[in-house]
């Protein structure tokens, strides 16, 4: 590379940054800046109505304040969220905003000076007025690196990203030798966040050394794990961090073409990523001779068509080539022979999002976070039976107990914790005894689960472990591409056995057959899907064998979940005679009054066991119970 060209990168970038900063500061001059969390989750909670309400009220009051759609802050339990940044006040985060609250905030806080503290979640800075989010007990355990921007910048405006320090890592990397960039990533100890945890730096080095041209960089955003939405949130909230990571990766391995493979089921992520690519191209942060240097790289967006197996890298490549997504033998690994037979680097969204921070702050800073063998932070989508659902980022080595009970604030409704499901269909359910396990790649694998892509579903006493194993098997069985016999037929047989259990059928010896078959499917499958599909069953058998036995021996579901093993029953003594709540809400008209005594009775033949009556029965009567086995219902 010529020295004259190298020297051009820094000044070109400085010019871009100066302009971005100016535009960003311009924004802060307004009377107030309103930011509404409008990622998919926020929208589902009603963020778009809130957005409209803010705009119409501002217009009515003749105020000229920018209203910005931002991404996901991670506090999903508090959606829809709005942040109001008014000079003289700290930026205040409001929770569960609706159209009425939005209008009030405009009139009373922006026009008046009452910050409406009753709707506040917290402030983003220290102040005497509002407690800061950083003082929340959970903040002690969290450390936001790749989620830092999420929910705080406009994902549709590249200048917000640049003003916050974005693309400086790319500018810095372009002034280094590619080998030096790889060296830095290697030193950081970063491991692939897609699930398997392969050392990222090593992968890059292999791809760089592999002969063949052109080379490709692919971002794997085919987040198919049910119960995981970290990649979606990052692409929706901070798409440029992924693009920057990809560009640095491409420079390091010597690639000129890139693809972002994103699920078509994520339309907003597709839209925002596409927009981000266009804006980056416009500023010459992508395209020919990036920032005036002699490195050229461009990215295309490819929409995956909804096949879970395409998260596997060789299947993903087949899909990009226009074929059915079936995996291939590895080796050769894609880093040596991938797309169109050329060296191809495939990294997960989160892995790529880490890159800019490693280049900016150095490998040493990164490896100082987390544990020795798994440095950095871990991002989890915390959902299920937990109070504070949402997207969290904690240093590796944090224990499950801290994540669930400190960050997530425990189980709602006074129920007791039963298990936590980690890693989706490839992972497993860990019981109470594993709560003090520090989370990292190796400890989870040892316990029988897997980091997976980071879905974490908390289960309580009402969740049946046999049913959850059956659920995951049903998923993997349907998504099996059918190439390997063990995966195609073995998962089917396993599913049938488990389905029998949930109906109270089967024999005790089937349990041993099931675990034998599970081991065989693991051994006889080519790709990650088949090799990990039996994990949920195996961990379940290991930790919750008693539940299986209750199903088989007694026809009883201890968690009262398996529909064929439960019955709903109204206790006559508790039923308040004049109340008709259950009769009115029953979706199949299965509840009627006793002809003489007038208490309510459920027609077991008609009942579809949807549980609506249970929620409709007023708590002071609490007359409806679930019984298992169904023969418990008094005649």
């Amino acid at each position, binding site marked *: 590379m010529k020295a004259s060209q190298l020297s051009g990168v820094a000044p070109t970038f400085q010019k871009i940054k100066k302009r971005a900063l100016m535009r960003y500061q311009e924004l802060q001059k307004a009377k107030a800046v309103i930011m509404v969390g409008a990622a*998919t*989750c926020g*929208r*589902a*909670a009603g963020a778009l109505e809130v957005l409209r309400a803010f705009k119409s009220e501002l217009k009515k009051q003749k105020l000229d304040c920018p209203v910005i759609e931002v991404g996901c802050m991670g506090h*999903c*339990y508090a*959606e829809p969220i709005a942040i109001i940044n008014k000079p003289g006040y700290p930026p205040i985060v409001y929770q569960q905003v609706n159209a009425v609250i939005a209008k009030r905030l405009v009139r009373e806080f922006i026009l008046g000076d009452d910050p409406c503290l009753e709707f506040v979640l917290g402030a983003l800075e220290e102040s005497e007025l509002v407690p800061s989010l950083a003082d929340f007990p959970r903040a002690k355990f969290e450390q936001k690196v790749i989620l830092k921007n999420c929910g705080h910048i406009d994902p549709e405006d590249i200048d917000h990203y640049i003003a916050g320090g974005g693309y400086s890592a790319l500018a810095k990397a372009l002034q280094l030798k590619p080998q030096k960039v790889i060296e830095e990533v290697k030193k950081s100890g970063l491991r692939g966040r897609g699930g398997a945890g392969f050392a990222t730096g090593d992968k890059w080095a292999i791809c760089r050394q592999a002969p063949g041209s052109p080379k490709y960089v692919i971002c794997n955003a085919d*987040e*198919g*794990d*049910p*119960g*995981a*939405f970290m990649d*979606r949130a990052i692409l929706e909230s901070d798409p440029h961090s992924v693009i920057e990571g990809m560009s640095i990766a491409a420079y390091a391995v010597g690639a000129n073409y890139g693809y972002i493979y994103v699920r*078509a*089921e*994520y*339309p907003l992520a597709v839209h925002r990523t596409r927009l981000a690519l266009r804006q980056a191209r416009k500023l010459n942060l992508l395209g020919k001779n990036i920032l005036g240097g002699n490195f050229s790289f461009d990215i295309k967006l*490819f*929409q995956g*068509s*909804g*096949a*879970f197996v395409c998260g596997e890298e060789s299947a993903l490549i087949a*899909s*990009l*080539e*226009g*074929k*059915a*997504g079936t995996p291939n033998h590895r080796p050769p690994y894609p880093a040596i022979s991938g797309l169109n037979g050329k060296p191809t680097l495939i990294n997960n969204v989160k892995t790529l999002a880490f890159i800019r921070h490693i280049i900016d702050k150095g490998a040493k800073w990164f490896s100082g976070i987390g544990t020795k063998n798994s440095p950095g932070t871990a991002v989890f*989508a915390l*959902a*299920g*039976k937990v109070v504070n*659902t*949402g997207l969290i980022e904690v240093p590796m080595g944090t224990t499950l107990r801290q994540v669930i009970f400190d960050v997530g604030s425990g189980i709602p409704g006074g129920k007791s914790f039963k298990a936590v*499901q980690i890693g*989706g269909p490839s992972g497993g359910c860990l019981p109470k005894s594993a709560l003090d396990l520090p989370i990292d790649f190796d400890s989870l694998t040892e316990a029988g689960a897997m980091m997976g892509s980071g*879905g974490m*579903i908390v*289960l309580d006493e009402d*969740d049946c472990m046999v049913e*959850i194993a059956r*659920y*995951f098997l049903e*998923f993997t069985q349907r*998504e099996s*591409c059918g190439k390997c016999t063990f995966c195609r037929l073995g998962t089917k047989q396993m599913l049938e056995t488990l389905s029998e259990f949930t109906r109270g059928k089967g024999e005790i010896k089937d349990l041993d057959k099931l675990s034998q078959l599970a081991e065989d499917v693991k051994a006889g499958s080519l790709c990650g899907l088949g090799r990990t599909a039996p994990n949920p069953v195996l961990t379940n058998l290991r930790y919750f064998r008693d539940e299986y036995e209750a199903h088989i021996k007694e026809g009883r579901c201890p968690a009262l979940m398996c529909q064929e093993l439960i019955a709903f029953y109204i206790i006559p003594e508790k039923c308040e005679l004049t109340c008709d709540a259950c009769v009115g*809400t029953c*979706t*199949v008209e299965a509840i009627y009054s006793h002809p003489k005594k007038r208490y309510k009775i459920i027609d077991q033949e008609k009942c*579809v*066991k*949807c*549980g*609506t009556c249970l*929620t409709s029965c007023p708590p002071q009567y609490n007359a409806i119970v679930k019984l298992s086995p169904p023969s418990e219902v008094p005649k």
Partner: protein
Amino acid sequence: MTNAKEKTKIKEQTRRLLNRFSRKRGNLIPTLQRVQAGLGYLPREAMLEVARFLDIPEVDVYGVVTFYNQFRLNPPGKHSIRVCLGTACHMKGGYITLDAWKRRLKIDRGQTTPDREFDLDTVACVGCCVMAPVTVVDDKPEGQVEPTKVDGILLSFERERKKRGKEKR
């Protein structure tokens, strides 16, 4: 059955939709996505046209269409109902919600009602796990969809339809 006139119409529409693509095998999935976005589904004629356009065997097109969950071979209803069966939704009763939809619409997953008002399907996960159980109604994720909310959503469509009917008159 599609008659000859409809067939030509589908063919022409497909050709128009294919215009902006180059004839590369790698474009198979994007072209199919574009055609489905335009026609709502992938009829036989459209698949044949795509095969001709990309100059690949017809069976390859059919193979890809039937492999991926996104593609559908029958026409969609006016309103699409997608029940999320992600882990969080399942554990909070997504399967009960699916049963409720099936019961009310009287169709199974993957089918369209005879009047082509609704089509029902499931989706692996839409990533709104917090609002479980979720049903995506016409691309809008609705949270906490329990059997009573299923009835509520259907009622709102019914009211809208009546309103439209009145306006027409």
